[in-house]
């Protein structure tokens, strides 16, 4: 337990000390909210969709969680050679605990990032249907964060260097985001797109957030939760296994 706690604490300390990084990583979600939110808002309203900022905000919150989470997971590639990871790997502790501590730490950081984006989106016009549901939304955000930190960790465990990083960003992380329904409703889509959205775990995270925060859900919040928890269990298992196989 103390191992997991200290690894978690370490990542939080690092996060709060890197203010430049916090501010820097808010640029992208802010841009998305402003450009897409106000850009497509009138068309969306005309088509009878209602307030687009309200619809978009959960998607952008999830996006910032996705990017931060995958990135903290991938950071292990660096850590393997130069960082702390080596120091933890020769310590008399189990690999599973190291993986869990790191994943919890990374996921907490990613969730905090999502919370900041949520606060920003309130300033530019995001309003809640049910303000009491914020706590439940926080749980969903943490689930999304855990899933993608574990995914990043699993990937980083098998990669040797950063060469593959672009590949992962462009062929995994970006598609996960763009095809998740973060930016558009999942109703009445072409079959190919909806099929992809259905196998993208992020879709369920965003859908759950929308269901909880603004009362719009495509899959149903219950199903969302079941899928998220199922995917998390699988990714944690794979991540732990791959992490335990790391040789440096």
């Amino acid at each position, binding site marked *: 337990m103390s191992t997991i706690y200290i690894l978690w604490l*370490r990542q939080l300390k*690092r996060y709060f000390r890197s203010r430049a990084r916090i501010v820097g990583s808010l640029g992208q979600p802010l841009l998305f909210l402003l450009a897409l939110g106000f850009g497509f808002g009138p068309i969306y309203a005309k088509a009878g969709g209602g307030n687009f900022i309200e619809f978009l905000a959960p998607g952008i919150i999830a996006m910032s969680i996705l990017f931060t989470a995958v990135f903290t997971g991938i950071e292990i590639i*660096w850590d393997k050679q130069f960082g702390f990871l080596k120091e933890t790997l020769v310590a008399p502790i189990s690999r599973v605990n190291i993986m869990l501590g790191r994943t919890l730490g990374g996921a907490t950081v990613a969730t905090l990032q999502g919370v900041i984006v949520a606060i920003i989106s309130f300033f530019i016009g995001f309003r809640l249907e049910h303000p009491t549901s914020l706590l439940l939304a926080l749980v969903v955000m943490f689930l999304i964060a855990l899933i993608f930190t574990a995914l990043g960790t699993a990937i980083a465990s098998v990669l040797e260097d950063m060469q593959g990083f672009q590949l992962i960003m462009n062929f995994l992380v970006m598609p996960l985001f763009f095809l998740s329904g973060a930016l558009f409703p999942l109703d009445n889509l072409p079959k190919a797109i909806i099929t992809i959205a259905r196998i993208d775990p992020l879709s369920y995270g965003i859908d759950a957030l929308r269901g909880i925060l603004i009362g719009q859900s495509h899959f149903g919040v219950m199903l969302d939760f079941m899928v998220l928890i199922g995917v998390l269990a699988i990714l944690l298992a794979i991540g732990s296994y791959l992490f335990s196989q790391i040789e440096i």
Partner: protein
Amino acid sequence: MKKETEKIIEVHGVTKKFGDFTAVDDVSFDVKRGEIFAFLGPNGAGKTTTIKMLTTLLVPTSGEITIDGKDAAKDKNGARKSFGIVFQDPSLDDELTAMENLHFHAVLYKVPKKTRDKRIEQLLKLVELWDRRDSLVKEFSGGMKRRLEIARGLIHHPKILFLDEPTIGLDPQTRNYLWKYIEELNKSEGITIFLTTHYMEEADKVAQRIAIIDHGKIMTIGTSAELKKQTKTESLEDAFLALTGKQIREEEGSAKDRMRIHRQMWRR
């Protein structure tokens, strides 16, 4: 009760293969308790692979390694408790303070809470970094980082300290200070020191016994004087060259080397 053996590290017929490539080929040697043992070899000779196997980061393809009476492949955690290590590349967390780095290590090694702070203070004073305990490690010079890493490696009272090229990139003053300090540790606390270095005069000065490895095989083991006598040379450097040849070793750029180059660019 297990009685303390005279040999603290025992390596029997250890081979490590990566695919078709044999990095370490049927190597056997042992290190005596309380000894300063230098492990020398040209680039790509198998030094790093051997250290990684000794410190449980790699599992040998065949053969047996015993660290302080524990099997390094089967009882990894048992073996891990008995050694501290200073890696070739810095493995401190730059974003944490000196104190936090040591505290982190103490928690990982389950140093009891009661003695933790006392031990950290004692070690930070020893390496003369107590005044800088609350500074972030990224503000430290290379020499200060090394000192801090040595302090960290000692927190859990290890019986063996592995030093993988500890003086690389340091100025002569710092190198001199470090070795003096390491020798003192060896004398006062009886810690066994296992080191690798490319500076032959350092090995000559501090090591009681020296092993030279090349092409994955141990070429010779002995005191510096024995090595010189065996090769009929004047200095350890000449003895080393006589044993391993003068040909320059071309190592293929590994993933790690490429990353070292990009490291500064990517650092936050």
